[in-house]
């Protein structure tokens, strides 16, 4: 009896299965989501036209998710006149820091700026040209410059970009992530306030700064230990 019920209900999950399989096989996410939507609609007994109506209606209702388009000309102009170069100056001015501290400073810079809705960071524009070389140089000063250390320091510096980005972005009340949460919850009949959501992203943001910060400082300690070991062996 229960199995029978389960069997007829499980077909409704066809959309979930399509999303998982489609994304696993690297098909275009838009096509995957569209296919999953059609399959789910058909299983729910909607006609193709009704499905198109549902998609069109949801697409129009949720246009606010893409309002960042409005900011693009401003950011584009500022970039043309050296916004990124100036941000790099800001980061570079923190010379003579240990590797871990470079990463701590960058993560907090990233969390604060992305929390203000500014997308200033990135692996290609900051980690590769600035943060990783600065960290490597700092570790080399302590004597930690083996290939294994380079690998670890590069991994850790790449992580500071991800922590800063992920655990800072929802602090901005018009962030894409918050807008998606709003959309999904309002589809289900719950009205939610963007400012309140941004406020409740603060504890996690602080926790991320602390947890990652502790790990970066522990790395610094390991670098110093490795450096003094090396020096000891050489004597």
């Amino acid at each position: 009896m229960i199995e029978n019920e389960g069997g007829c209900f499980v077909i409704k999950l066809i959309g979930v299965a399509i999303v998982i399989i489609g994304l696993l096989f690297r098909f275009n996410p838009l096509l995957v989501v569209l296919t999953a939507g059609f399959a789910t609609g058909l299983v729910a007994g909607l006609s193709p036209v009704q499905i198109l109506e549902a998609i069109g209606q949801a697409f129009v209702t949720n246009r606010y998710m893409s309002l960042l388009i409005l900011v693009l000309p401003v950011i584009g102009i500022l970039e043309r006149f050296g916004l990124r170069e100036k941000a790099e100056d800001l980061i570079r001015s923190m010379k003579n820091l240990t590797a871990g501290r470079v990463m701590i400073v960058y993560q907090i810079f990233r969390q604060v700026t992305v929390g203000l809705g500014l997308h200033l960071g990135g692996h290609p524009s900051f980690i590769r040209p600035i943060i990783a070389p600065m960290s490597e140089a700092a570790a080399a000063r302590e004597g930690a410059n083996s290939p294994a250390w380079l690998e670890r320091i590069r991994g850790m510096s790449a992580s500071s970009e991800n922590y800063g980005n992920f655990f800072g972005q929802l602090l901005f009340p018009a962030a894409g992530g918050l807008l998606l949460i709003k959309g999904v919850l309002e589809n289900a009949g719950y009205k939610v306030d963007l400012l309140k959501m941004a406020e409740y992203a603060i504890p996690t943001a602080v926790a991320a700064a602390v947890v990652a910060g502790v790990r970066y400082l522990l790395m610094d300690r390991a670098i110093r230990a490795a450096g003094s070991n090396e020096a000891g062996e050489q004597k």
Partner: protein
Amino acid sequence: MTVTLDQIYAITGIFLLAFTVLTVLDKKQSGLTKAGTATFWGLYGITFIWGKEIPPALVGGLVVVMAAIAGAKWMGMGEYWSATADFRRQMADRIGWWLFGPALAVPVVTFLVAWLAPKMGALVGLGIGSVVALVMSFALTRIMPVQAFQEGRRLLDAVGWAIILSQFLAALGFLFAKAGVGQVVADMVSMVVPVDIRFATVVAYCVGMALFTMIMGNAFAAFAVITTGIGIPLVIKMHGADPAIAGVIAMLSGYCGTLMTPMAANFNVVPAALLEMHNKNGVIRAQVMTAVPMLIINILLMYFLAFPGK
């Protein structure tokens, strides 16, 4: 003075149509890529300006065309008359820290409007802030307006079709809700999770977010599925969690999953290659020991913050 969201949408649509015109005039782009890119931004602009006037089924049709263009890879980059590195460096030194002025005007105006005029809200604030910042950057740089839109188009073409993915996921969530997918997932979760215990449902929601994000490589996609399946029926309806608080912490739990999966290639695998690391999972290896404690912290935060007065 009241600014409505519809007016902000109209401005966005006009921007998109300006990008469309610039794409049509672009001499570097040609053939299907040019036609595809121009059609994509043009149709998208139309949904912003006349989205409410056009019958929903027709909008649905336009959306299918946009997905087809993206799926066929008929979108690409053009010629934007970008500045050289020398010019950027020179201007950065001349204008200096003022460059951050317009950039900071966007969040400042957004927050101010959200606080002082809550009826208009953060979204209208973002729209007003963008216009204020645009005027400020014109004054600061004295750039030609056409070039300003070239710079905007450069950034939008770089994002490409991904800009509408959130709207697609919302539409999928809408269809899931119509089909009752959430209830089916909830019933299945109920078989393995003791749903009477509030803490157990919170763990199921947060861990579900992290796991699904790891499988799909995308926290937004996971959010639409797991929130309709676990978050709403079990955590919000059954145990009375505040939807806003539970929702945002669930998304952050999903981000913990993003830190641990090669499926999120842009964040984890591409940077490893970019940094010439030997182990292409080296970035993930560095992140696991942060992601796991952060997931546990998020579970506790949801448990203690999302049930005020209960």
